């Protein structure tokens, strides 16, 4: 993630000289009046930036500030907001659903890592060595990603039918396994959600790994071959170390993404059975929009803020902990 930062020295060198009409030596030496600023092209530059500034101001920067303020307020959209200090936070923390949602989200993220992290890597390594029709492999792997998530979830909901004539249960019957309850049991609901989510998302990771694999310097493989390294040794000592940066990045991105899981629990189970699949984001949604007794926007904002803060802290610790490994 470090290369996103535009101030890394590597990128600074490639950045071209500024293309403004103002003589760069004159900058800052004389006091610039609005008129000279406009004459030197400042106005037209500002006009080009205007769509970006307006849209991000209104729909990104302002809502971020508003979120922080709302977390410390009581808002019901009718009366003016009142400051309540940390009351929203304490209400969220004392909500009996809060620890359940945190546990479920952690379970989803953990299971998604177990199911979804090694599989795309293995698939990508295998595809990268296909000699003919590599495009067909990639396209097949990516196909589930273009299926709209709502369609995917509703389709899998039908596949997960718990009766003996459900699609998956019919297939299990072929291999002699009895019908499973899938999303209708507390124990199997979460793994079922993760399975669908992995199906829907793994293709994107496969393609990212494939791109990274083609970037591995072929000379390293040759050198390893000359030194007598076999296939497995080459994977362990060339492929994986060469891909460590992208592997570390996809790992943290996957954790951040799965920590925000909403669609699957919302459409599959609405958080059930018996709150077994209620997640943090579903809880936020319920606070703000799912409460028939009146929306508690303050609590939703407080929980959102806690989620962002946690993810930011987690990413920071993660980046610190893996820094030496990813760049060394």
């Amino acid at each position, binding site marked *: 993630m470090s290369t996103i930062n535009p101030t890394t020295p590597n990128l600074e060198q490639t950045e071209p000289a500024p293309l403004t009409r103002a003589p760069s030596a004159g900058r800052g030496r004389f006091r610039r009046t609005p008129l000279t600023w406009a004459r030197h092209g400042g106005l037209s530059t500002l006009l080009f930036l205007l769509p970006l500034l307006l849209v991000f101001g209104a729909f990104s920067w302002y809502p971020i500030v508003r979120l922080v303020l709302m977390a410390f307020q009581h808002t019901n959209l009718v009366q003016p907001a009142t400051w309540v200090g940390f009351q929203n936070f304490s209400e969220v923390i004392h909500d009996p659903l809060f620890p359940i949602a945190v546990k479920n989200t952690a379970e989803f993220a953990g299971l998604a890592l177990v199911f979804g992290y090694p599989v795309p890597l293995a698939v990508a390594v295998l595809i990268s060595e296909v000699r003919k029709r590599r495009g067909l492999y990639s396209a097949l792997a990516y196909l589930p990603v273009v299926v709209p998530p709502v369609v995917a979830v509703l389709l899998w909901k039908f596949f997960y039918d718990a009766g003996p004539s459900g*699609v998956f249960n019919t297939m299990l019957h072929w291999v002699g396994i009895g019908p499973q309850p899938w999303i209708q049991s507390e124990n199997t609901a979460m793994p079922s959600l993760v399975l669908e989510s992995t199906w829907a998302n793994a293709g994107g990771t496969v393609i990212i790994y494939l791109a990274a694999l083609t970037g591995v310097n072929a000379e390293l493989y040759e050198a390893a071959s000359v030194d007598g390294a076999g296939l497995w040794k080459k994977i362990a000592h060339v492929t994986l170390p060469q891909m460590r940066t992208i592997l570390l990045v996809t790992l943290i991105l996957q954790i951040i993404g799965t920590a925000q899981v909403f669609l699957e629990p919302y459409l599959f189970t609405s958080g059930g059975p018996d709150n077994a699949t209620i997640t943090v984001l579903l809880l936020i949604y319920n606070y703000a929009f799912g409460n028939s007794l009146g929306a508690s926007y303050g609590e939703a904002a407080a929980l959102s803020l806690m989620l962002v803060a946690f993810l930011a802290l987690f990413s920071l610790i993660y980046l610190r902990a893996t820094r030496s490994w990813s760049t060394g």
Partner: protein
Amino acid sequence: MSALQFRSKRGQRSEETPQGLVSFTDWNRRSVKYGLGTAQAALLVLLVVVGLGPVLWLAKAAITPTQDTLIHPMAVFPHGTAWSNVSDAWSQVDIGLYLWNTIAIAFGSWVCQIIVATTGAYALSVLRPKWGNLIMAALLTTLFVPTVVLLVPLYIEIVHPPLIGGTYVDSYWAIWLPEAASAFNVVLMKRFFDNLPHEIFEAARIDGCGKVRLFLSIVLPMSKPILAVVSIFVVLASWKDFLWPLLVLTDTSLQPLSVRLPAIQGQTELGVFLAAMLIACLVPIIGFLFLQRRVLRGTGLSGALKG
């Protein structure tokens, strides 16, 4: 990892010459040849079953009578086909209208996002104002705030917009404009502009080319590859979006397919419902088949950006 570097790296290894992990000598070894060959054949079968299987099943079930799908879900047309499902989806559940809504939302999102990303990236990369780095830093910060956690403040902003007043619930602008605030698009676009040959811009400027003309007749035409990639992502993301349209579009006649499908599930016959689902995913799938190469390259590119 810039766009151009990325492409040159791809060029180093073509499909026909396996100089990578498995060398020619490896391929000539029996164990590797058969072991890897078998693994790859198994992978192909697995990818067909797992990747294509559910979609094929949906296509089959969409034209199968409801009772057959319920009782024998894995049988292929035990009692003939029911093409009426598809026509019923058009006539009974108004799929045509929702499909049109989805297209309108995707098109508007595309226009807004392309305008914001290209003009913004042009200003930040080519014109480079003094306070450009500050704006860039503010943009990058938003990458670390997931959009879903902004749902509540954004929703309140749409219901009760500050300064301008009124309400924008049930207006497509409530979807088009917030989606345009995508720092990812701007960063992707700026990276590409940064790698364009700036000598050309300098030459054009000396020849008296203004900023607007430089943008429209030089920078944009040179940026077709990245414009295609961003366009595909924008349209696909808009087609997939569910939660935000659900919140801001309360009028059912304005809602897109993704919002309507879960809502109509209860009162629609299964066969007709599956046909409706097929229609909903047909457009992105056909689009993907046509633009396969660009989509896959773009996905790899976005991964390179994340790295």
